[in-house]
């Protein structure tokens, strides 16, 4: 088993949708030896073996609608997919070009025999129009979100 894995995902050409990658890039600059950092536009199946080999996983993503996130971000365990929830997850977030963390974790467990403990850090995405760079509102959330990642890293 390797160390911890952080996957920051989203499209950096769609404004705040790129906040996951922005946080991943900042974390990579910390140079933590036991933390592998992956930046991805989408979650795709070949990440499953990486997940299966990781001690713990943190997905970092933007979440549309600031109202949905108290304080601008939240760190929580990735909710498990119930058997009945698999179809819904695959219909709305189909596995092919685009998978959810839950589906990817299930794939890791089903194909590679291990589902690591997994969390998600969801940061409020205020503007996801065409363009690079974060909105001032989401940019302002980065220090708090990065502190949350540090907490997660130190919680090993």
């Amino acid at each position, binding site marked *: 088993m390797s160390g911890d894995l952080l996957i920051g995902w989203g499209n950096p050409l769609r404004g705040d949708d790129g906040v996951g990658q922005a946080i991943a890039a900042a974390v990579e600059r910390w140079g933590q030896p036991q933390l592998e950092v992956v930046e991805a536009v989408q979650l795709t199946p070949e990440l499953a073996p990486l997940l299966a080999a990781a001690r713990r996983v943190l997905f970092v993503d933007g979440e549309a609608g600031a109202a949905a996130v108290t304080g601008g971000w939240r760190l929580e365990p990735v909710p498990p997919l119930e058997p009945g929830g698999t179809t819904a997850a695959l219909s709305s977030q189909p596995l092919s*070009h685009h998978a959810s963390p839950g589906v990817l974790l299930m794939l890791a467990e089903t194909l590679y025999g291990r589902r690591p403990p997994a969390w998600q850090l969801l940061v409020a995405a205020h503007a996801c129009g*065409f363009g690079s760079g974060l909105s001032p509102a989401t940019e302002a959330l980065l220090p708090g979100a990065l502190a949350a990642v540090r907490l997660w890293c130190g919680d090993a």
Partner: protein
Amino acid sequence: MTRTILIDPVTRIEGHAKITIHLNGAGAVEAARFHVTEYRGFEAFCEGRPFTEMAAITARICGICPVSHLLASAKTGDRILAVTIPPAAEKLRRLLNLAQITQSHALSFFHLSSPDFLLGWDSDPAKRNIFGLIAADPELARGGIRLRQFGQDLIERLGGRKIHAAWAVPGGVRTPLDPVDREAIRARLPEAFATTNAALERFKGLLDGPLAPEASTFGCFPSLFMGLVGADGRWEHYDGQLRLIDAEGTVLAEALPQQRISEALAEAVEPWTYLKFPYYKPLGPEAGSYRVGPLARLNVCERIGTERADAELLELRQRGGRVVTSSFHYHLARLIEILAALEAIELLLNDPEICATHLRAHAGVNAFEAVGVSEAPRGTLFHHYRVDANGLIEAVNLIIATGQNNRAMNRTVTQIARQWIPPGAAEISEGLLNRVEAGIRCFDPCLSCSTHAAGQMPLHVQLLDPAGAVLSERWHQ
């Protein structure tokens, strides 16, 4: 009385889209439309940027095909510099594109489409997905993932994990292939070949049996086909001449003018979709519509040029004719192209020049307008830039493969709907829904590379009367 069946959005494709099926007064299918509801607005914010940054910028458009944009952009940059890149740089770019074709086709075949093929159109939707496939055939599912992983691994060994940092640049590529990486790639080839061969045999068996009706009704119609061809009409994916043929195999254009492509191709618009309808100008919007992508590339070429892939191409033509017109055979074409890509990768790895270190030509701005063309997994990709004397972008136009297949996708959906919706039908069966979606998935469209933060929508199906009242409604979840 007319009614409309609405399928919104299409699942398992990039971006958001919907399908409407219009019934006439007799309850028969009048027409079907594939709507793309999101505007591709990536070009606008490229204006004012240095053209040397375009490869890095446009590679971020898509999480599935960044390499395709990277290469088309780098080739456009080569033209602006007016340089011939070093031979080793071209070979490395080719290697990168072959890896991209492998991983993208593997994703399409094994993860999008195999559940339909192997578990049945009318099977329980709770099981007709990748997990159902794993339960039914774990080796195939695992092999598909490893094949995609092989392609991704090759891409990362060439360009680094952050391929978006633009390994391919105007004038060449940034870094050579390490001999250690060459051996690591070579070591994985036997498994990749074995997975591809197993999938080919399995799929051809299905085509001869339970999938025969779909092969004859999923977008089976005459059209033009366009794609790059190399020397002697050989299969090509990176450079060469742009050939256009008709459904009988007659070559309408042997070498479309790539740098003046707007003289040969035009784009029609419809009010109900943001996606344009490119066509061959001399024949007009309808007769001039053409298909691109794996099937088109196999149709326009004379041969692939490698032993195993050529044997499969011959078998494809025995099955579907010299020009294969059924869109369902895009799936078989993908598998054949994976095989062709693996053989070409093997040849390139054996090339003594592949680890050479002279990889870049340098120059200033020598042309103010240029077009770069390459074959993305989904079809021919054009990048067209206009720059000022300082190399700053004044205008950008991207012609993507999915757009060029737009009219074919509409015709495919119409054909499937006519075949599978009985006159007077008021309910939409699971099998029908899945076939309509699967018809679109033949083309493996990549629509918008859109944000996921906006949330996900489940499949929503509505049957509407002429006044817009909902006659029946179904959520696909």
